[in-house]
């Protein structure tokens, strides 16, 4: 048994999704360019010398767990730090908590985010438009679980093997091709089928945060040993997905002995060109 297996997995949709799960990944660092306009100032305005339009650059960081609906935008010194809590909805739209300022609707894109704030200073109203550019990477907007299906290259790393301890933690590769799989939704969740390198179909469901579960599978090893695969920690992410698989065997296939267990960590990378 190879401790590190590389295989190809294909996920395809079986029918159009009624609603795309709002799974996005926008955490990272941003350069924030402000453009402010002052309007409505009358003679009592405290600072008539202030220009009508100003520009300012600051920097920020967005804290956000992939797929979560809440996030925090921290804008840094020297403009004066801001700490904005926001709620993220479909397709990158977000709303800043009212207590953190009078912000209009904001929107994340692949390249950053945009939002505007209205602030009253004396008789003036300052409209401050934030145009933020993602600094460290691109945002992922839209569902992490591919609606139209996708192919993945899966690296399997054996982290524990009580059947043959020498195999655990060593590395080798065994790429194998996969055949098609499918995703089907139910009214209460998002059912899908993960085709595991063409040899078996794994049935599961995914929530709106990209977490997924797979039904356990039983099989026969060497036509005589009962084996059960249980799956945990499934999570779609920006790159693909991760998963932990524990295979319990009723007997040791390598030597005389009782039951043994093999734990394998899967790390899947979505292949270019796969549908999203």
């Amino acid at each position, binding site marked *: 048994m190879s401790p590190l297996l590389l295989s190809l997995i294909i996920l395809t949709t079986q029918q159009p999704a009624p609603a795309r799960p709002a799974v996005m990944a926008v955490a990272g660092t941003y350069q924030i360019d402000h453009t402010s306009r*002052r309007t409505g100032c009358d003679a009592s305005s*405290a600072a008539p010398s202030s220009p009508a339009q*100003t*520009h300012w*650059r600051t920097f920020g960081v967005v804290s956000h767990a992939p797929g979560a609906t809440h996030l925090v935008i921290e804008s*840094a010194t020297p403009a004066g730090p801001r700490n904005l809590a926001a709620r993220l909805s479909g397709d990158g739209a977000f709303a800043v908590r009212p207590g953190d300022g009078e912000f209009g609707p904001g929107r994340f894109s692949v390249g950053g985010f945009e939002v505007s704030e209205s*602030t009253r200073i004396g008789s*003036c109203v300052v409209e401050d438009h934030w145009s933020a550019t993602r*600094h460290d990477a691109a945002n992922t907007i839209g569902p992490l679980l591919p609606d139209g299906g996708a192919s993945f290259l899966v690296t399997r790393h054996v982290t524990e093997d009580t059947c043959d301890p020498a195999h655990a933690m060593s590395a080798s590769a065994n790429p194998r091709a996969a055949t098609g799989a499918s995703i089907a939704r139910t009214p209460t969740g998002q059912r899908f089928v993960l085709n595991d390198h063409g040899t078996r179909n794994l049935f599961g469901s995914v929530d709106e945060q990209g977490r997924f579960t797979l039904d356990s599978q039983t099989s026969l090893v060497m036509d005589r040993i009962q084996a059960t695969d249980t799956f945990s920690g499934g999570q779609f992410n920006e790159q693909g997905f991760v998963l932990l698989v524990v295979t319990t065997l009723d007997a040791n296939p390598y030597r005389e002995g009782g039951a043994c267990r093999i734990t394998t960590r899967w790390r899947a990378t979505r292949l270019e060109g796969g549908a999203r």
Partner: protein
Amino acid sequence: MTRRTYVIALAISVLATGCGAKATAPAPSLQVGGDYDVLKTEASNTCGPVGGSISTPASVTHQAGATTFAIVDHGTRSLPGQVARNGTMTMDVVRSTVMGTIAASDTFTNGRFTASGFDLTVTTDLADNPNRPGTGSGPCRIVTTWRGAKLGSPNVIPE
């Protein structure tokens, strides 16, 4: 001098004495609390292009006559300081983290309250350049002048 004349003379004398005494007016107490319109302008910037400015609201919490105050900067921070009767102010260094990883500090100098507001210089030192994070470009500095225009009644600066 008749008795009537004596009484009038005495009354004039008393009045004259009273008028001649100097009344001691209470000294005005320092008052700088209230709302401000703060124009922040970059004076220098070794991190990137210089020249930005932005107007933000701020408030100053201060009890009349007290030597301590705090500038509640637009957003989420309160900047404590001390103010003298002539309006000069000193403020503590504020440390923060920019973009989650870059250590930064704001140092406040040249602070002075005036009747019309306040002036302040803020020097922001960053341990790494936020325009080029992680490239080893090293520390950089942004110097910003704050000009706060008092909204409502003017400040009272006793000296």
